[in-house]
Structures are given as structure tokens and as C-alpha cells.
């Protein structure tokens, strides 16, 4: 990675972190509920009555009730974990491969 790219990546990542973190500190006491829920509130508002979903999520039917918050965060973590695992595995291989390739090239030159 060239030093120019390194600088771009670092700046961009810092910027992304700031965008994510600032609202949390700026809006103290905000609820930070999901915007999906805000959508369902809007449906009720437009309809004028409380909207009754005609189908409940399959997991909630199995366990007879809502998924507990902690379990839900666990499942979200599993999703993140699977993704990060795959990304990191391949990225690691690529980085290592590049290292060996560069080394081999260097030896030929010598």
C-alpha cells in the first residue's frame, strides 16, 4: 500500500468513526430506537388505527414470544462474526501472498 493510500484510508476511517460516534454524544438522552420501528409507527399514523401485522416472525412463533434482547444481540453478533471471519480470513491470505510475491520478485532482481 502506498503511503498516499494509507493516508486516505486512515482519514476516511477516522471520519467514519466520527460520523457514527458524534450523534451518540451530541444527542444525550435520545432513545436510538430502530428506524424500522419508526416506519411501523408511521403506518399506524397514516392508517389512523394501530396496525396489526398479519404474520409474526417465525422465530417468535417457535419460542412463543419476542426474542429476548440479549439473545437478539447475540444473533446479531453471530452475523457480524461470520462476516468478519470470512473477510479477515481472505484478507489475511491476500496480504501474506503479496508479501511472498514481493519477496520472490526481490530475489530474482538480486
Amino acid at each position: 500500500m502506498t503511503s498516499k493510500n494509507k493516508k486516505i484510508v486512515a482519514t476516511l476511517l477516522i471520519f467514519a468513526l466520527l460520523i457514527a460516534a458524534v450523534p451518540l454524544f451530541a444527542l444525550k438522552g435520545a432513545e436510538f430506537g430502530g428506524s424500522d420501528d419508526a416506519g411501523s409507527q408511521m403506518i399506524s399514523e397514516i392508517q389512523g388505527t394501530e396496525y396489526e401485522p398479519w404474520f409474526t416472525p417465525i422465530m417468535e412463533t417457535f419460542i412463543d414470544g419476542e426474542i429476548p434482547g440479549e439473545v437478539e444481540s447475540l444473533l446479531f453478533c453471530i452475523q457480524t462474526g461470520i462476516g468478519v471471519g470470512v473477510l479477515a480470513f481472505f484478507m489475511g491470505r491476500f496480504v501474506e501472498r503479496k508479501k511472498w510475491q514481493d519477496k520472490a520478485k526481490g530475489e530474482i532482481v538480486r
Partner: protein
Amino acid sequence: MLYKDLPCERRSDEWESSEFGAYFIGTPFGYTFIPKKLGGKTERRMKMSKKEKRVMKLVIAFALAFGIVPSAYGMHIMEGYLPVGYCIAWGAVCMPFLAAGFFSIRKRLQENRKTITILAMSGAFIFVISSLKIPSVTGSCSHMTGTGLGALLFGPSAVSILGMIVLIFQAILLAHGGLTTLGANTFSMAIAGPFVSFGIYKLLKMLKVNKLVSIFLAAMIGDLFTYCVTAIQLALAYPSETGGVFASAVKFLGVFAPTQLPLAIIEGILTTVIIITLETYALPELKAVGFSKEVQ
């Protein structure tokens, strides 16, 4: 050479498979798309087999038949929040894209097995990105789609498959989105968004805009567009009594857009960062998928 220019009377026996009718039922990844013979003729691999054509025709017909029937015509729509007719219609509309995506992925992999790593990484990126709920300026949380990366690297139709897998995972395990609204959500997140990303990237490339800037804008606008489509999907199903579909769409957009804007910027940034990294370390793979053409 284009598909249509190739002779289609020759059937490729390597694609003869008894599972054919089941491609779109269940996850497509359950079926082998790794070619049995890796050393076949390239020409044979490039054309659509008769069966593939037949399947494409069938699903397009299906989409037209069911997709237009409801008089009008929507981030993740919650389970059970769309009327049945809309669920079926959106599902049907997705079918041709999913079929095209499946064929495009298989063709890529048959041309070059190496591309599977990039495909896996694009899918993993969607997995990670769409599981992160990030606080936004409006005081509520939302998450990104992550489909821009795959669309730029693999083409928009391939992402429809990847996106749908993530949506199924979330619908079943997380009660986030839903099985009944899978069609509508697939359309907004895995079809509309990626197609816009792809289009914007191509357009900016033609206009010779800086590559990183075009990647950033493509991913960002694709993410925003996903939410616009969701708003429209909801508005079509729930038109406001006073202003009709339009007034309703504005209301839903009012909920989604301000929340999503900062997140779309983050998504643009992350996509750019991933592509810079891949270009540094995985140039052979990026060339194999046709993203980077310049020789190292």
C-alpha cells in the same frame, strides 16, 4: 461476444442436472455451481444453455403475470406489515433478477474459480455491514446495506443473491425484516440499490471522475436509494387518505432519509476503503472479476 450472438442449439451437457427445477427454491448456494469439468471449451461456457434460457423466460413470464396484477404498485419492511398481494408481487418482481444473478455468478465462477474469494468477501461485507446498527443524527438507529461493494465488483444482478441470503438469515433468526416481506426487501436492498450503485459508478467512470470519488458516491447513493425504494414500497401499500401515494411516500421518506444520510456516507467510506485495500493486495482477483484492468 454477447450471449445472443452465440449459437444456442448446442446444449451443454455439463449443466444437465436433475436439480434444475429447484434453483430458486431454497438458497441457491445449496447447489453446486462449481463446474464439473474445469477444462471445457470457453465458448460453451459463455452461452446460456437452452435450459437456462427456458428458466429465464419462465421466471420473467411469472414476474410479469404476478407483478402487474395488483393495481399499483416499497429498510427492511417488518414481518407481516405488507398486504399479501404486495408480498407476492414484489417476490415475483425479484425472480428474474435472482435468476440472472444466479446465472451470472455461475458463469463467473466457471470462467475463473479464483473469483469465489471476492464473491465470498462481498457477501461477508454485506453480512457485517447490515448487522451494525449505528446511531444517527435523528436520534434513532439504522443500519447500512453493504450491497454497493458487490455491485461494483461483481455486477448488480449477482448481489441480488448475496443480499437475499443475508435477508433470509435476518428474517428467520433475528425477526428483522421478514419472510413475508422478503420479496419487497430483496427488491429494495439487493436489486434497486445495487443497480443504482452500478449505474452511477459506470456513469462517473465515463465522465472520468476520480475513481475513489466515484466508488464513494456509487455506494452512498445506492444505500440512500434502497431507503427511498422502501419508502415508496410502504407508500404504495399505505397511501395516505388525503394525499394518496405521494404524500405517504414523503412521510415515509421523512422517517428514513435523515437517519440514513450519515450512514450512507459511512457506507461510501467503508466501500472505498475495502476497494483500496483489495486493489493493493488482491489485484489478480480484481482483474479476474473485471474490476481492475490496469496491469500491475
